[in-house]
């Protein structure tokens, strides 16, 4: 497996040419249990259907957008019946959540490896973390925008919040601030939650540049860099 070129930045940051190539999406599918009883054919069948639906949905959301894609089309592309889509997923929103979840597993596996090796000031480290996100998402901009559009979809069950809550990214940023405070780089009186919220808001809104102006990863990254600079300007030791 060759490492995807657009994560070369992450590789550089980690200085990890000698490390294992990043495992990225599509997520390695859970294989059938390696030992013990052979999986029932029903289980494998269900797993196969799920994977086909996810693969078809990823392509359709990315080419046609979220609103423009119907469950019926997803079923047709996946070569399964509409009924069997619904035995696995409750709604279109849930399929999208799963598509994003699978993709992000790859991204965060990579970040877990890269982040501990980041050097520099808190804002430098934040910039690297977001740059990795933009270069990852910009490969499938429409898919990410579908993710955003779905957040306001009426058909979503109240519990589903596909966008805006990203516990893994929030955790990474929190750690970044904690390290900043430990290093004397960030004022200890800063309430991390508010800073995290602002960064997350900035991160999500920057995709507006992609949605409305067709901005690419470098453009989004440089806009984010400026915003991080402004936020960090208010967080330093007084």
């Amino acid at each position: 497996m060759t490492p995807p070129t657009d994560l070369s930045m992450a590789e550089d940051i980690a200085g990890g040419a000698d490390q294992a190539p990043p495992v990225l999406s599509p997520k390695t599918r859970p294989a059938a249990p390696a030992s013990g009883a052979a999986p029932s054919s029903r289980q494998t069948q269900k797993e196969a259907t799920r994977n086909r639906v996810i693969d078809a949905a990823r392509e359709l959301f990315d080419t046609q957008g979220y609103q423009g894609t119907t469950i019926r089309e997803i079923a047709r592309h996946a070569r399964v019946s509409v009924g069997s889509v619904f035995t696995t997923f409750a709604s279109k929103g849930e399929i999208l959540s799963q598509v994003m979840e699978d993709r992000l597993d790859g991204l965060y596996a990579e970040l877990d490896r890269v982040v501990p090796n980041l050097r520099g000031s808190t804002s430098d480290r934040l910039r690297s973390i977001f740059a990795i996100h933009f270069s990852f998402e910009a490969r499938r901009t429409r898919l990410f925008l579908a993710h955003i559009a779905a957040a306001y979809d009426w058909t979503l069950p109240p519990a589903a919040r596909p966008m805006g809550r990203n516990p893994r990214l929030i955790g990474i940023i929190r750690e970044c601030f904690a390290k900043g405070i430990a290093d004397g780089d960030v004022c200890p009186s800063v309430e991390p939650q508010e800073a995290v919220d602002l960064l997350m808001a900035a991160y999500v809104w920057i995709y507006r540049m992609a949605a409305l102006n067709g901005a690419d990863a470098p453009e989004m990254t440089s806009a984010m860099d400026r915003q991080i600079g402004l936020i960090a300007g208010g967080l330093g030791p007084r």
Partner: protein
Amino acid sequence: MIHSQIKAVADDNVTKAPTRRALAKQQTRAKVLAAARRLFSEQGYEGATIRDIAAEAGMSTGAVFANFTDKSDLFREIMLTDMVALAEAMAEGATHGNGCEDTLLKIFGAGYRFYQTQLPLARAAFSVGWSPEDGPALRNAPPVQTLLGLISEQLTRGEQNGELTAGSAEPLRTQMLFDAYLSNYDQAIFQGWSIEALEGRARDQIRILLAGARRK
């Protein structure tokens, strides 16, 4: 109730022959807009069809299309009307502020109060705002520029009265303050936050965004 009011107005118009046609057209528009507002609030932007809106307004789809080019035209009209009123409410809020941070907070609070009773419509607006087709018209609408201008004005005032360092009123800071204001609607829409909770969060956000600009 709205229907009976409109009917009463319509009956009055019979006597005012010269403007009757124009008034009738205006009333049709108002009826369609009221119906559309209800349906967008109940079913979201995607969920509401022109056919449903026409039925809700008690007229044919043809009559709707005689007044609006399409659904996005209809939605834009509703949003623009609201945004003009929103901008006025926020400008009024600004007059109660004391100092840069507090004035910005009063502006934001006025906005949250304005949308407090129509959050479903705000949700539909966010959804449309992200769409590549209809988003730009909404985001670049003149009332949005007015809101940005109002925020920028507070920063400039802060520079002038010595609260903030020169150059603090940069477009980036203005935009980020506006984005922070907007981002809190997620809490209002999805988590039912109270106005007080939204204001508390906005206050902290404003503090961080102004911190780097304060005179030390």
